[in-house]
C-alpha cells in the first residue's frame, strides 16, 4: 500500500513545481483525488510584473519567473505557462527581455484556454516573429523558418507525415506580411503589399492568410494528437500508449482544443497516480524543489550551469528532456549548489533527523541504499547544525531527489 504522503507528493511534483512546505501541511490527510481537484480549481496567479528597463533585464526576467514558480500558491496554471514555454518557445538568445515578457503574457492568457487561440496569438507575437524570422518575410521570397517549426515542433510533429516540404513553402507564404515597428514600441504591423494576395494549397486545402493557415493546422486531427502526447508526457512522465493517446486526442478534439479539458483528462486518470518517479526532474524543477527544501533563495544563474534558464532555451525545440538531464556536468553542479546553500537550513528533529529531512523533501518512497548512505552520515559530524547541513546536502544529491 502506497503511503498517502507519497501520492500527495507526486501530485504536487507534477501539478506544481515541487513540494512547498505549506502545501504538504495544507493537504495533510487529503485523498490524492481531492488534492488534484483542489489544484485544478485554483485560480491563475496574477504576479506583479517584473521591473524591466535596466542592463540586468536578461537576468532579472528569469529570476522573476523563478520566484513566481517558487510561490506556495503556484499551481496548475503556472505549470501550464511553463509547459507552453517549453513547447511553443522563443528565447533571449535572439529576442530582448521586454518582448519575451510580452510573449510570456500571451502564454499566461491562454495557458489553460483554447489551443487555437494560443497558436493564433503566438503566430503574430513580436517575440515569435523575431525568433523564427517572420518579421519582414514577404510572400514573394518568404522566410520558411516559422512555417516549418510551427508544424514540426509546435502543432503537428515530425513523425506524422501530415505535411510535406511543399506545405512548408506554401505555409511560409501565408505567414508573410508581418513586420515589427521598432519606432513605435515594437508594435506588430501587417503590410498587405508584402503579404500573399491569392490562395495557396496548404495541407490539402487552400489558405491565404496567417489566420487561415493556423486554423488549417489546428483542424488536422494530428494537431490534437500531437498536443495530447506532449502534455501527457509532461504531466505523467512517459509517452502514453497508442490507445490512451487516441483517447486523449479525442477528448481534446471534441472539446474544440480546450486545454483545460485535456489537462483534466490526463490527471484524473487512475493511471496518473501510478506514474511516480518515472522521469528525472528538469533543472528548473530541481532548483525550485531545492529552494523549498532549503527554504532559501537560489540565484537563477546556477540554472545556467544546469542548462535550463527560463526564457533562454538552447534552440527552437526547447530543452532536451528526460535522460539528457542526467549528465556528469549537472551532477557536479548539483553538488556545488547543495554545498553552497545547505549551511543555513533548519535544524532537524533530533529523534529522527533522516525521516525529518526526507519528509521536508517530499520523499516518501526511498530506497534502502539511500537510507544507508544517510545513516552512515549521522556519526560523521559533531553538532546538530552540521548534521542538518550534511543531511540536507546529501538528500539534495540523492537519486530520489532528482526524480520528478
Amino acid at each position: 500500500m502506497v503511503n498517502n504522503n507519497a501520492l500527495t507528493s507526486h501530485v504536487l511534483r507534477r501539478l506544481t513545481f515541487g513540494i512547498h512546505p505549506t502545501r504538504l501541511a495544507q493537504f495533510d490527510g487529503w485523498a490524492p483525488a481531492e488534492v488534484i481537484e483542489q489544484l485544478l480549481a485554483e485560480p491563475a496567479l496574477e504576479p506583479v510584473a517584473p521591473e524591466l528597463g535596466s542592463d540586468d533585464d536578461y537576468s532579472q526576467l528569469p529570476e522573476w519567473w523563478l520566484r513566481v514558480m517558487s510561490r506556495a500558491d503556484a499551481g496548475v496554471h503556472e505549470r501550464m505557462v511553463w509547459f507552453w514555454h517549453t513547447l511553443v518557445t522563443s528565447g533571449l538568445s535572439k529576442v530582448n527581455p521586454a518582448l519575451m515578457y510580452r510573449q510570456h503574457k500571451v502564454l499566461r492568457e491562454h495557458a489553460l484556454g483554447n489551443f487555437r487561440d494560443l497558436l493564433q496569438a503566438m503566430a503574430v507575437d513580436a517575440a515569435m516573429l523575431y525568433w523564427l524570422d517572420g518579421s519582414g518575410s514577404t510572400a514573394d521570397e518568404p522566410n520558411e523558418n516559422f512555417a516549418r517549426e510551427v508544424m514540426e515542433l509546435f502543432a503537428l510533429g515530425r513523425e506524422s507525415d501530415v505535411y510535406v516540404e511543399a506545405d512548408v513553402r506554401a505555409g511560409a507564404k501565408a505567414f508573410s506580411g508581418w513586420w515589427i515597428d521598432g519606432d513605435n514600441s515594437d508594435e506588430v504591423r501587417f503590410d498587405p503589399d508584402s503579404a500573399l494576395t491569392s490562395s495557396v494549397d496548404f495541407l490539402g486545402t487552400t489558405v491565404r492568410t496567417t489566420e487561415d493557415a493556423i486554423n488549417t493546422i489546428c483542424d488536422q486531427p494530428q494537431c490534437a494528437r500531437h498536443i495530447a502526447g506532449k502534455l501527457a508526457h509532461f504531466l505523467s512522465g512517459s509517452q502514453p500508449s497508442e490507445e490512451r493517446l487516441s483517447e486523449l486526442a479525442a477528448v481534446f478534439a471534441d472539446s474544440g482544443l480546450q486545454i483545460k479539458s485535456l489537462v483534466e483528462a490526463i490527471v484524473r486518470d487512475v493511471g496518473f497516480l501510478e506514474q511516480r518517479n518515472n522521469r528525472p526532474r528538469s533543472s528548473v524543477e530541481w532548483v525550485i524543489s531545492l529552494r523549498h527544501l532549503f527554504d532559501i533563495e537560489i540565484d537563477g544563474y546556477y540554472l545556467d550551469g544546469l542548462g535550463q534558464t527560463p526564457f533562454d532555451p538552447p534552440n527552437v525545440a526547447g530543452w532536451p528532456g528526460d535522460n539528457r538531464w542526467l549528465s556528469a556536468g549537472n551532477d557536479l553542479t548539483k553538488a556545488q549548489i547543495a554545498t553552497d546553500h545547505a549551511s543555513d537550513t533548519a535544524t532537524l528533529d533530533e529523534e529522527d533527523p533522516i525521516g525529518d529531512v526526507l519528509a521536508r523533501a517530499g520523499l516518501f518512497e526511498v530506497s534502502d541504499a539511500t537510507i544507508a548512505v544517510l545513516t552512515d552520515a549521522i556519526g560523521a559530524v559533531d553538532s546538530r547544525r552540521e548534521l542538518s547541513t550534511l543531511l540536507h546536502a546529501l538528500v539534495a544529491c540523492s537519486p530520489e531527489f532528482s526524480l520528478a
Partner: protein
Amino acid sequence: MPACVSRRELLKWASAGAGAAAVGGATWMVGRSDADHPSLDLGSAGTTPAGTAAPRTAQVEPAPIAAVSNLSQRLLVVIEMGGGNDGMSTLVPYGMSGYYDLRQRTAVSETDVLALDGQVGLHGKLTNIHRRGAAVLQGVGSPKPDGSHFEMMARWWSGDPLNSRSFDTGFLGRLADAIGDPAAAAVAVSVGTSSHPALLSRKVGTLAIPNADAIGYVVGAADEDPLRQAFQRGFAAFGDRNARNAAGGFEDLLREVRAQTVQFAGALGTFGEEGDGGYPDSSFGQGLRLAAQLLDVDLGVRIVHVPMSEDFDTHDDHSGRYPALMEELDTSLEAFFVDLEARGLRDRVLVMTTSEFGRTARDNASAGLDHGTASVAMLMGPVNAGLYGQHPLLTDLDENNDLIATLGFDQYYATVADGWFGVPAGDVLNGSPEPLAGIFTTA
C-alpha cells in the same frame, strides 16, 4: 564531366598573380591530384584567375605536422556548428558561375575571400585557419536531404545519412567503443550541460560536462573538514554500483551517472587552471580549452565533442551575423592550436567540424538563408591541407533548387574512423562507406 586541377596547375595559378604567391603555397595544396578523387570542380568554369582577385596574402606555415604514427595515441575534437552552417559562406565559391546570381543579398565579396584557387576560398575571417591550413571537404551531405534540423541532427549524431534508424548508439559513441578503454572514466566527453546523443555508447563511458569548475565539490576535501568529507563520501556512495537498486529505471541511471561523475572527478583531481588560458572568454573558446585539458591529462579521454552555442541558423541578416561566427571559430581554434603546441599534442589531435545541413542556395527576402542541403566540413591538425571532393554545381540544383551533395557524410565519418583511428568504416557505419585517401599526414 568536371575537370580536375592538379597541384602543379594550382601552384601555377597561385604564382601567376603578383602578391598572391603564398596563396597556394606550401599550405594550401590540393590534396589529391588523381582522377579517383577529383579535388576541384570547375563547373562551367566562368573562372576568375586567382591573381586578379587581389586575395589577401598569408604567411607560409612550415611543412604540415606529421601525425603521430601510434594510432592509440590519436585524439579527436569534434566541433558541432548547430543550426546549419552555410558551406558557401565558409568556403566561398566566388569564382563559380551562379554564385552571385543565387546570393544577391548574402554573397561574400571576392575581396573578402582568402583564396585557395581561382574558384573557391575561405571566408575572410578565417585568417588563422587559412594560414595553418585545413583539409576542406566539399559538398558534404546526405543523398536524401531533409529540411528539419532535428531530423538531420539525429542523422549526423547517429551516423546514418539515410535515416534507416538502425542505430541506437551515436557515431562518436561507437567510435569510442572501438578505440577506448572500458576501464577509463570516460572515453568521449561532450562539453555541455546535457548528455549528448552522438556519444551514446555500449561498452565505454561517455559523459557530458560544461566545465570542470565544480570538481572540487565532490572530491578532495581536506582532512580538517569532516563535514565536507562526509558529504563527498555520501555523494559518492549514492553511486555505489554494488548498492544498485533492483528497481531499474531512472534511479539506477542516476546512480550510474553518479558513479561515472565521481570516477571522472577523481581521475581529474585538482584540475583547474587559473585565467582564460589565452582563449576567448566565450563558451566555445573555454570549451576548447577544456578539451585541451581533458586530452592532456592521462584519463583515457580520446574524443571531445564541443558544440558551438553560437547560432548558425541564419534565416535573416546572414551577412550581418556570419562574420562573427567565423571569427569565433577562427580565434578560438587558434588559441586551441597554440595551446596544443605548448602541451606537445599537435601531432596527436585531429579537429573535425560538423553541421546538420547547409543553407538554401538562394537567399530570401530577409537577406537570410533557409534550411538547405550540402555544406562543407573541415579537418584540421595533422592533415594535408587542401580541397577534397567536388564542389556541388551551382547551375545544377535539385528539385527544391538546393545543392546536390557530392560526398555522403558517412564517407566523411569513414575517413576519420579509418584514416585517423584505423577503425574499419564498416565497424561503425552502415555498409562500408569509402574513406577519402590522402588527407592525413604521415611521419
